[in-house]
C-alpha cells in the first residue's frame, strides 16, 4: 500500500530547469538568529522571535539563517559561526546569550546585533555594552498588573493563583505585576481577594523547575485549585497546557490567564478557558527590528515594549465578556491610562532599567 503511494508520488513531472534564481531581491542583507537552549519550538520567546524573523525575512525576500543551541557552551560558537557566514544582523534570544553577544559585537563592529529580553549590560553601568547591539526588552509588569486587577474583579471565590516555570526575572515580572494588580483591586474596592503562589516582598513563590508541561506543572496547578483559586496564571511557555489539564479534571469553573500571546487565538481548542492573556509583542518587535535593519535603518537604541507603545498589553475578554462585571472594562482602561500618565506606578524588581 505504502509502496504504491510512494511510486505514484514519485511520478510527478520534473519542473523546468530555469527557476534557480528566485533570490532576485539583489539584497545582500542576511538576518540570522541563535536560539537559547530552549530551541525554536519552545512556545515562548524563542518561537515568537523566530516567527518575527521569518515574517520580516519573507517580506524582504531574504533567506534567514537560524541556528539552535543545545547547551550554554554552544552560544559563543554559534554566534561566531553566524558571523563567519556573513550575517548582517544577528538576533540572539535571552539573557543566557548576553555574554556571547557582547563579546562578538565588540569583536565585529560591522555586524549588527539584537538581543531579546535582555539589556546587554553585563557591567551594570546602565548602558548597553557595545554600540551595535539593540536590546529588545519589555516592561511586562504593568500589563500583568491589569490582568491581576481583571482576575481579582472576576474571581468568585476570592482566591487567584500563579506559578512560574523557573525563577527568572522575565518570569517573575509577570507574577509581580499580577500580585500587585490584585492588591490594587483590593485597595480600590475594599475587598480581600487573595493572590497565591508569589510573594512580591520576599520574591519567593511556586515554580515547576523547568519550562515543560508535565507533572510538576500539573501538581502546581492542582495545589492552587485545592486552595480554592478560580483564576490561574501559569507563566512559562508550555506549562500552561498542564494547568488546562488540571482545570478540566477538577470539573470546577476555573479561568486561566495566558502569557506572551493571546492564547484564545493560538490555542483555540481551549479558548473557553481563557479570561484574558498578558501580551508581550516579541514577534512584532523582532519583525520590526529585522525589517528596519533590512532597509538600512538599524539603530541601536533599546526597544522597550510598554503599555504606551503597545509592546505589552492585555487581550480582550472574548467569551468572558458577559461573565465579568460590566464596569471592569472601563476600570481597566482608566488604570491603563493612569499607568501611562504616571499617576499609577507599577514597578517590579525585574522591570527593565532605563
Amino acid at each position, binding site marked *: 500500500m505504502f509502496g504504491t503511494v510512494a511510486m505514484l*508520488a*514519485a*511520478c*510527478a*513531472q*520534473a*519542473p523546468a530547469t530555469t527557476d534557480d534564481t528566485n533570490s532576485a531581491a539583489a539584497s545582500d542583507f542576511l538576518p540570522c538568529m541563535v536560539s537559547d*537552549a530552549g530551541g525554536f519550538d519552545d512556545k515562548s520567546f524563542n518561537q515568537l522571535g523566530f516567527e518575527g524573523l521569518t515574517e520580516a525575512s519573507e517580506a524582504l525576500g531574504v533567506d534567514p*539563517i537560524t*541556528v*539552535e543551541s*543545545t*547547551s*550554554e*557552551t*554552544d552560544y*559563543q*560558537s*554559534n554566534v*561566531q*559561526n*553566524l558571523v*563567519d*557566514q556573513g550575517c548582517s544582523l544577528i538576533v540572539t534570544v535571552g*539573557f*543566557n546569550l548576553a*555574554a*556571547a553577544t557582547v*563579546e562578538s559585537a565588540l569583536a565585529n563592529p560591522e555586524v549588527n546585533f539584537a538581543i531579546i529580553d535582555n539589556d546587554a549590560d*553585563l557591567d*551594570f553601568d546602565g548602558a548597553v555594552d557595545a554600540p551595535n547591539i539593540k536590546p529588545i526588552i519589555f516592561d511586562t509588569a504593568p500589563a500583568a498588573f491589569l490582568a491581576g486587577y481583571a482576575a481579582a474583579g472576576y474571581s468568585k471565590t476570592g482566591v487567584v493563583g500563579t506559578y512560574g516555570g*523557573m*525563577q*527568572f*526575572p522575565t518570569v517573575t515580572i509577570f507574577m509581580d505585576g499580577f500580585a500587585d494588580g490584585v492588591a490594587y483591586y483590593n485597595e480600590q474596592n475594599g475587598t480581600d481577594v487573595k493572590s497565591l503562589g508569589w510573594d512580591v516582598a520576599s520574591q519567593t513563590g511556586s515554580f515547576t*523547575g523547568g519550562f515543560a508541561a508535565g507533572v510538576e506543572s500539573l501538581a502546581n496547578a492542582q495545589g492552587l485549585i485545592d486552595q480554592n483559586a478560580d483564576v490561574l496564571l501559569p507563566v512559562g511557555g508550555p506549562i500552561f497546557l498542564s494547568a488546562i489539564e488540571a482545570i478540566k479534571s477538577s470539573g470546577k469553573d476555573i479561568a486561566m490567564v495566558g502569557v506572551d500571546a493571546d492564547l484564545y487565538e493560538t490555542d483555540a481548542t481551549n479558548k473557553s478557558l481563557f479570561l484574558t492573556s498578558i501580551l508581550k509583542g516579541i514577534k512584532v518587535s523582532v519583525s520590526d527590528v529585522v525589517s528596519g535593519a533590512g532597509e538600512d535603518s538599524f539603530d541601536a537604541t533599546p526597544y522597550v515594549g510598554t503599555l504606551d507603545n503597545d509592546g505589552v498589553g492585555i487581550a480582550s475578554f472574548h467569551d468572558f465578556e458577559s461573565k465579568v462585571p460590566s464596569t471592569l472594562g472601563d476600570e481597566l482602561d482608566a488604570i491603563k491610562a493612569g499607568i501611562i500618565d504616571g499617576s499609577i506606578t507599577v514597578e517590579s*524588581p*525585574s522591570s527593565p532599567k532605563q
Partner: protein
Amino acid sequence: MSDATPPAAPAPARPASGPATKDGSERWNQTLRDITGGSAMISLLAVLVALVVGAILIAFTNEGVQETAGYFFSRPTDLLRAVWDAVSGAYSALFQGAIYNFRANNFLTAIRPLTETLTFATPLIAAGLGVGLAFRVGMFNIGGRGQMLIAAGAAGYVAFAVELPAGIHLIVAVLAGLLGGAIWGGVVGLLKARTGAHEVIVTIMLNFVALYLIQFLLRTPGALQAPGSNNPKTPPMLPTAVFPDLFGPRYNLHAGFLTVIAATIFVWWLLSRSNLGFQFRAVGQNPNAARVAGINVKNVYLYAMAISGALVGLAGVNQVLGTLTTGFSSGIDAGIGFDAITVALLGRSKPWGIFAAGVLFGAFKAGGFAMQAAEGVPIDIVVVVQALIVLFIAAPPLVRAMFHLPTPGTTKKPRIRKTNEVVAK
C-alpha cells in the same frame, strides 16, 4: 556460529556449578565487561556505520531531496544529485568546522576549527576518563552531571569570589573543583561499600540533588549569583583564575587541555602501573575473587568513585575556568556527564582510547555548529550519530554480523575464512 562451539559437555556445566544467588550480579558484570572491553575495530566500525546512517538521515530531511523525490521517475539524476549535495555539503561543513577551514585566506585562520575541536574535547576527555575508570572497576557512573555541577560550583566560587595572587588562584580553584567532584563521587562509593546501594541509582539521584542545589545557590545573593543582577547566573571569573590561552587570544584553546593530557597519563599510570590500579582491575574482573585474594573491595569502591568523581569534576572545572569564563548557570554541564559515557564506551575504557574518542566527539561538537550554520542541517543529526555509535558499540554482534567479523573467543577455522574470501571477491 553455533558450529564453532565444541560439542563437549564441560562448557555448559561450568556456570551451573557456581552458586545460584550470584547469578544476577555476575551476569551484569559480564555484560558490562563485554560492552566496555570490546576491540578497537568494533569502535571504528561503529563510528563508520553511524556516519552512514547519519548521511541517510541528512538526505531524508533535506528539502531539495524531498522535492526531487517527487519526480524521481521522470528525472532520477536530480534526486541523486540532491542527495549528494546534501550529504557532501553537510559532511564537508562538519570537516571544515572541526578540522581545517579551506575557505580561510591564511593558515592561522584556517586551523582555528582544529583548536575549537580540542577545546570542546577537553571536558569530554576528562569526564570520559572518570566514567571509564569506574567501568574498569565494574561500576557505572551516571552521575557525571552532578559531579560536574558541584565541581563547577566549587571551582567557580573560588574563581570569582576569592582573591588570590595569579597562579596560586588558578591552582586553588582547580583543586576546589576536583575536591567537589571527588566528594560527590565518593559519597556514592561510600554508600555502595557500606550499605550496598547500587551506584547507578545513587549517581542518578545525586544528579538531581546537585542540579537543584546549584539552582538554589544561583539565585541566592551572596552565594553564586552575580551581585547587582537578578538572573540565575554567576559573575565572570577573575582573570587570575582563568586557564591561560595556549596559542594567544585568537584561539579559544586554553591550558585546561594540558590538564586533561596530564589526567590521561595519570589514569594510564594508575591503571597499569600502580598497586591501587591493580586492585581496581582485579575488583572489576571479579569482586569475589578479589576479596578472596585479600583486596579490600569496599575501600576500592570508595577510592574508585572518588577518583572517578574528581576526573569528572575536572571536566566541570574546565567548563568554568576555560570554555565559558564569563559566568555560568545551571546548564554548565552541557550534557557532558552523559556524553562521557559514550566517550568511555567508544574508547573501550582505556585512557588513550578515551582521549581519541573525546577528540572525535569534540570534532562532532565543533563541526556541528558549522554544519547547522552553513548547511541548515539540524544540530540533532549530530546527536543522533552519537547515539547510533552507542547503539552499535552496545551491540557488538550486530556490527560483527554486518562486517562478517569473527566472534572473539572462537577458533578461526580455515574453511570459514576461505568462504569469506570468496564472498569478498
